[in-house]
C-alpha cells in the first residue's frame, strides 16, 4: 500500500470520526448507552424489583376463610403472614375450587382472596379463590400458600413424632457432606470463563452489528442522500481507498462501542457478585490474541456487509429498512450457540458463518485452545471476511452510486 493511499485512508477515516464525534446524539446512542445499559439493567432493575417487593410486603390484606372447623395453628400461621381473616361458613359445593357465589366479589376485588378449608378424616382439603391479574390478590394467594406450607410442615413433623420416629432422619435421610462449592474442581478463573462465555459472544455479536448500523448508513446512503458523495467521487482517491477509510471509521466506532459495553457488563456482574463470585478468566496470551483475531475477523465481515448493503441503498430510509431486520441473522445464531454443547462438538459447526466466531469465542473464553477448531474458524472467517470485503468493493465501484443524486 503506497504512502499516499495510507494517507488518504487515514484522512477519510479521520473526517468520518470527526463528523461522528460532533453529533452528540450519535455519541449517546453508540458510546453512552452501551456503557450504561448493563449497569442499569443489572443494578437499577434489581433495586426497582426490591422496592416493588417491599411495597407488596407492606400491603394489608384481607382474606375470607370459609371453613366449618379452623385449626388454631393454621389461624396463627395465616396471621404470621400479615393477613386479616374474616370467617364464613363453607358453602355447599361439589369441589372447593368451584368459585360459585364468590366469583363476583373476588373478580371485583371486594376481597383479596377466599380460602376454603375442610377436614376429610385424617387429611384436609383446601382451595384458594383469587384473581391472578391483580397484584393484591396474587400477593394474598402467595402469602396463603406460605402459611399453608408452614402449617403442613408442622403437621408432618407432629405426625412423625407421634409415630415415634426422628424428624430429621425421616425427612432428610440423604445429606451432602461438607461444602458443595469445595467439591467443584474447576478453578475460579475457569468458572469465570464459563460464565462470561455465555454473555460476551452474545453481546459482541449483537452490538458489533447494531453499533455499526447507524455509522454505516450515515457514511454511505447518508452521503448519497445529502449529495456529498458526488464531490467525493471526483477526488483522486480510489473507491477502494474510500471503502477502507469508511471501514476503518465504522470499525473504530463499533470497536469502542463493543469494548464499552463489555466494560459495563463486567462492572455490573462484578457489582452484583460483590467482586467475589466472579473472578478474571484464566487466559493465556495466545488465547487473548486468538480472541482479538476472532473479533477482528467478525468485525471485518459485519462492517463490510453493512457498508455494502447501505451503499446499494438509494436513501437512508431504504438502507434502514434493509439492515435493521438483518439483525435477526445475528441474533438467532447468537442465541443458538449459547445452547450448543461444546464437549465433543462436531468440527463443522466452526465453519458456519457467524456461528463459527461465536463458538470460537465461547471456547476461547473457557481457555480451550483446540488447533483443529481454530484452523477451521480462522480459515472460514478469513474467506467470509474476504467475500464480504469483495462484495463491498463491488458496491463501491458501482457507477450508479452517484446517479440518485441527479
Amino acid at each position, binding site marked *: 500500500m503506497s504512502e499516499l493511499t495510507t494517507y488518504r485512508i487515514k484522512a477519510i477515516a479521520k*473526517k468520518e470520526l470527526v463528523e461522528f464525534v460532533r453529533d452528540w446524539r450519535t455519541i449517546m446512542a453508540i458510546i453512552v448507552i452501551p456503557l450504561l445499559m448493563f449497569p442499569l439493567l443489572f443494578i437499577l432493575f434489581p433495586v426497582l424489583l426490591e422496592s416493588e417487593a417491599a411495597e407488596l410486603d407492606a400491603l394489608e390484606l384481607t382474606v375470607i376463610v370459609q371453613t366449618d372447623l379452623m385449626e388454631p395453628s393454621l389461624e396463627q400461621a395465616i396471621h404470621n403472614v400479615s393477613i386479616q381473616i374474616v370467617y364464613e361458613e363453607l358453602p355447599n359445593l361439589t369441589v372447593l375450587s368451584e368459585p360459585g357465589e364468590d366469583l363476583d366479589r373476588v373478580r371485583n376485588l371486594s376481597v383479596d382472596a377466599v380460602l376454603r378449608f375442610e377436614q376429610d378424616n385424617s387429611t384436609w382439603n383446601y382451595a384458594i379463590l383469587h384473581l391472578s391479574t391483580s397484584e393484591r390478590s396474587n400477593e394474598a394467594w402467595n402469602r396463603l400458600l406460605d402459611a399453608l406450607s408452614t402449617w403442613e410442615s408442622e403437621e408432618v413433623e407432629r405426625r412423625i413424632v407421634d409415630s415415634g420416629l426422628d424428624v430429621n432422619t425421616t425427612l432428610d435421610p440423604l445429606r451432602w457432606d461438607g461444602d458443595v462449592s469445595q467439591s467443584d474442581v474447576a478453578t475460579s478463573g475457569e468458572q469465570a470463563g464459563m460464565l462470561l462465555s455465555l454473555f460476551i459472544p452474545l453481546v459482541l455479536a449483537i452490538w458489533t452489528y447494531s453499533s455499526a448500523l447507524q455509522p454505516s448508513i450515515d457514511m454511505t446512503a447518508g452521503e448519497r442522500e445529502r449529495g456529498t458523495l458526488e*464531490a467525493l467521487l471526483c477526488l483522486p482517491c480510489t473507491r477502494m481507498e474510500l471503502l477502507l477509510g469508511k471501514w476503518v471509521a465504522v470499525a473504530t466506532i463499533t470497536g469502542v462501542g463493543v469494548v464499552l459495553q463489555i466494560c459495563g457488563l463486567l462492572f455490573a456482574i462484578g457489582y452484583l457478585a460483590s467482586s467475589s463470585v466472579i473472578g478474571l478468566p484464566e487466559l493465556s496470551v495466545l488465547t487473548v490474541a486468538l480472541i482479538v483475531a476472532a473479533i477482528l475477523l467478525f468485525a471485518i465481515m459485519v462492517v463490510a456487509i453493512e457498508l455494502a448493503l447501505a451503499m446499494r441503498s438509494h436513501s437512508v430510509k431504504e438502507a434502514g429498512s434493509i439492515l435493521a431486520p438483518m439483525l435477526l441473522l445475528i441474533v438467532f445464531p447468537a442465541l443458538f450457540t449459547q445452547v450448543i454443547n461444546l464437549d465433543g462438538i462436531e468440527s463443522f459447526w466452526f465453519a458456519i458463518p457467524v456461528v463459527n466466531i461465536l463458538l470460537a469465542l465461547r471456547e476461547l473464553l473457557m481457555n480451550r485452545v483446540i488447533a483443529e477448531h481454530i484452523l477451521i474458524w480462522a480459515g472460514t472467517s478469513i474467506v467470509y471476511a474476504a467475500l464480504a470485503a469483495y462484495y463491498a468493493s463491488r458496491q463501491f465501484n458501482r457507477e450508479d452510486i*452517484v446517479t440518485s443524486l441527479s
Partner: protein
Amino acid sequence: MQPLLTLTSVSKSFGDLQALDRVDLDINAGEVVGLVGSNGAGKTTLLRLMAGVYTPTSGTVLLADGNPVTKMRQALGVVPESTGLYSRLTAWENIRYHSRMHGISDKDAWARTAKFAQHLDMVDSLGRHTKGFSRGMRQKTALLRALAHGPSILLLDEPTAGLDITSARTVRRLVHQLKNEGGTVIYSTHQLAEAEQVCDRIVIVHNGEVRADGSPEELLKSTNSTSLEDAYVALTKDTARQRQEDDEKEGRFTGMWRSFFTPKPPATPALEVNEDE
C-alpha cells in the same frame, strides 16, 4: 496547440436511455466553455464523464498527456450541482479534506483558499460550520474547495442556480478572474445570457447530442439569428426529452409494488368541441 481535455466519440447510456450520443469535444487551455441545454439534455452526464465519475459506454475522455481523467483527477476541480459540503465540518475543514485527498499540504491549500476567499468575501466564514450556510455561501465554499489544490481545469455544474443576484455575480466575477489568470473553466448552465456573459465558447447540448459548438458570434452566424435565444431555439427545434431521474430506475417488483399503492390522477375532462368551427 494540444487540447487540455479531449472527448472523442463519447457515448453514455443508462439501460435503455442514451444519455449522450457520440460527443466530440476539445477543451483548450485558457478557455471558458459553457455547456448550455435544457434539463435532461445531458450536461451533468457530460460533466461527470469529464470528472471521471462516469466511464463512457464508448469513446474516450483523455487529458493532454494522453491519460484518462480517472488517472489524473488532481488536474480537475469540480463543483457539483449539489455542492456536497459536510454540514458538521467547518468551511475550511471541508476544503482541507478535499485538498488532503489531492495530496496537497494544509499550508498550500490554506494559501490558495485565503487568496480566493477574499475575492468571494468568505474569509470570516471559513471557520464556521456549513450547516447554517445560505445557498450562496455553500456555492462559494464549494468553489474554494475546488480551487484549493490548484486544478488546471475547473468543472462547474450550474454554479449560479438558486443563487441571489449578488452571489451569482460574485461567482461569475471569479470565473472571469480565473480566465484572466489563464485558467480553464467548463461551465454548465441553462441560462443563455449567463453563458454569453461568462463564456468564450458555447456548446449547446440537446437530447444527448452536441448541436453546436462555437463562440456566441459563430452561433449567431451559423443560424442566421439575431440573438442567442433565437439561435438556441433554431438548434433545438425537436422536443426536449424528459429528465430521467436515476431514482426512477428501480427493480420490476419495486415498481409494481409502488404503483399498486399509488392512486391514479383524476381523469382530464374532455374538451368540448364547437361544431361550428
